[in-house]
């Protein structure tokens, strides 16, 4: 009798193990707890809160957002900054990555590029305030050489935020792009060359199709970063005007109007827009080859 029970016991364990469940699986529990506590619960709470407006019906917050131009225009303003910045970063990163891929010593360059990421957006914003201001080095130098007669206004407008997002976003975009570019087997390019493909054709027919899936991921990650811009939009932009991005609207709702419900609704809208764009890009990515970018065995 007891032997039969033991058999059953073992076979259940074996069956679980065959599906990848064993003692090691328990190690994911802390991560799951962290996800539940710090992401899933606040998200669901915010979602629920957004349907608990201070006044009015269930959808009052959403109705208010899409009725008030001061609120709904933040979506377009944020996109107007985030999309061009992301595209510029990506398009600039590709040629640089193609050059750096051939370099012997990439380390010092990588270190240099990681620096703006580690310094944080606030420090970069402070630096730009000094550098790009009317009395900053850039304007003074340009005026010294007579290239301009009066200082160029690069701060507290669209371009201030744009530049700051390029500076903080480019290294991230570049490092991701570089990892995708170097992941392509160099023998593929050589093979294309021996088959008569010139540099432009090699890029178009070999590199680009193999890079697109990685570039899509890079776009999504860079876009999400740029879309949630807050510090530089306040410090370097015109937070009441052209750079009143959606996170500023959420911030004002929460901490100036103390309307957490509306703030939650804005956060949900923000999340939905990001999700829609990321989802769209990933769906397009699905149309491309996504396997390993190697040339075969070996």
């Amino acid at each position, binding site marked *: 009798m007891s032997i039969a029970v033991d058999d059953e016991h073992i076979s259940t364990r074996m069956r679980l193990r065959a599906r990848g469940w064993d003692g090691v699986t328990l190690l994911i529990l802390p991560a799951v707890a962290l996800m539940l506590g710090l992401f899933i619960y606040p998200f669901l709470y915010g979602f629920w809160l957004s349907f608990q407006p201070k006044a009015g019906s269930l959808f009052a917050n959403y109705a208010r957002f899409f009725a008030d131009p001061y609120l709904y225009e933040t979506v377009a303003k944020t996109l107007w900054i985030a999309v061009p910045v992301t595209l510029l970063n990506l398009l600039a990163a590709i040629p640089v990555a193609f050059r750096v891929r051939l370099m012997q010593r990439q380390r010092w360059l990588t270190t240099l590029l990681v620096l703006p990421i580690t310094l944080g957006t606030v420090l970069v914003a402070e630096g730009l305030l000094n550098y790009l201001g009317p009395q900053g080095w850039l304007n003074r130098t340009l005026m010294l050489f007579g290239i301009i007669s009066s200082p160029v206004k690069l701060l507290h407008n669209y371009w201030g935020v744009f530049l700051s997002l390029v500076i903080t976003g480019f290294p991230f975009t570049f490092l991701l792009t570089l990892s995708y570019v170097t992941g392509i087997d160099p023998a593929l390019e*050589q093979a294309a060359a*021996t*088959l*008569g493909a010139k540099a432009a054709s090699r890029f178009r027919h070999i590199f680009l199709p193999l890079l697109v899936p990685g570039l899509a991921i890079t776009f999504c990650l860079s876009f999400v970063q740029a879309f949630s811009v807050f510090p530089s939009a306040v410090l370097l932009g015109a937070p009441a005007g052209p750079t009143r991005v959606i996170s500023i609207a959420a911030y004002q709702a929460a901490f100036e109007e103390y309307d957490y419900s509306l703030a939650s609704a804005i956060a949900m809208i923000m999340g939905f827009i990001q999700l829609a764009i990321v989802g769209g890009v990933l769906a397009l990515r699905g149309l491309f080859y996504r396997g390993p970018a*190697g*040339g075969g065995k070996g």
Partner: protein
Amino acid sequence: MTNNLNSFKTLRLQGVGRNFGALNVLKDLTLEVRRGEFIALLGPSGCGKSTALNCIAGLLPTTRGSIWLDERRIDTLGAEDRGFGMVFQNYALFPHMTVRQNIGFGLKMRGVAKAEAEPRIDKALATVRLESQAAKLPGQLSGGQQQRVAIARAIVVEPPLVLMDEPLSNLDAKLRLEMRQEIRRIHAGLGSVTLYVTHDQDEALSLADRIVVLRDGEIRQVGTPEDLYARPATLDVADFMGFRNRIAGVVTAQSGATVTLDVGGVALTGMTHGAVVGVGGNAVAAIRPDDMVAVGDGGDGLPAIVEAIEYRGRDYFGQARGPGDSELFFRSGVKLGIGAPVRLGAEPGKVLVFTGSST
């Protein structure tokens, strides 16, 4: 632009060399190849054979020398303008293209019209027997099939020169033998030059019309497989041709090509090709394990102690410790015990004697 290269008579390498920094990996490679020849570049890894191939393909710039197709200098052209076909060691198939697109890529790059390209792709697919796999991606194919796609892709453009960089090294033994025959058949059908890089002497012997043995970036010997197999010019080449036993001795007698050595008190007779060794000089005898036969204790031959023995079908092959602590590899008709004393002998015609003292 590449079409006028198609009808050439000879490919000439004139003192081609390549440095990597201060390292001279390829020294003064000079070779003339006639149309229709199958040439194997044979050498151990690091001997510069892949460098030579890449220089000819245009994937690596040469440091010295020139490459000519008849009277046309080609080392100044980029890889894309040479019009050679290349089969890479790891195949380098485009993973995002189907087999058909992979094979058609070269034609597309040459601007061949679709109506002309399609039948040529079909023919190439038929040549490598992959008609049924045309719509698959390379990742869905086995190693041998990928290999054949790589070959089809290189030959569909009917290149004057096909370069192959150890194309069979990733395949299992059985497939390797099959592919050897395929490659030979495809070469015969194309009528162009094939330059085949390998470190496998069997492959070189069975495939090539002529073998070029490279070592330390230099050509050591060029010859037909029969030549190289029977008469390696140097000890290096002999080593590569399977003369695993190298026994140092002192010359005691020489008449014509026949030389007798004294190896630790035992006489060993062999042949020398060319160089006269001179009585009293140091020499090395090279013998294939196949020709080094165990004659049993008390017979005529070098005394040795058996250290290892293994059965390889038909015969036993073993390793023994011989005179002067030398390591000897031999064949035996019977199984010998480890530690057993044995005499190892070889017919004089199978023993090659080279000048020098180092083994």
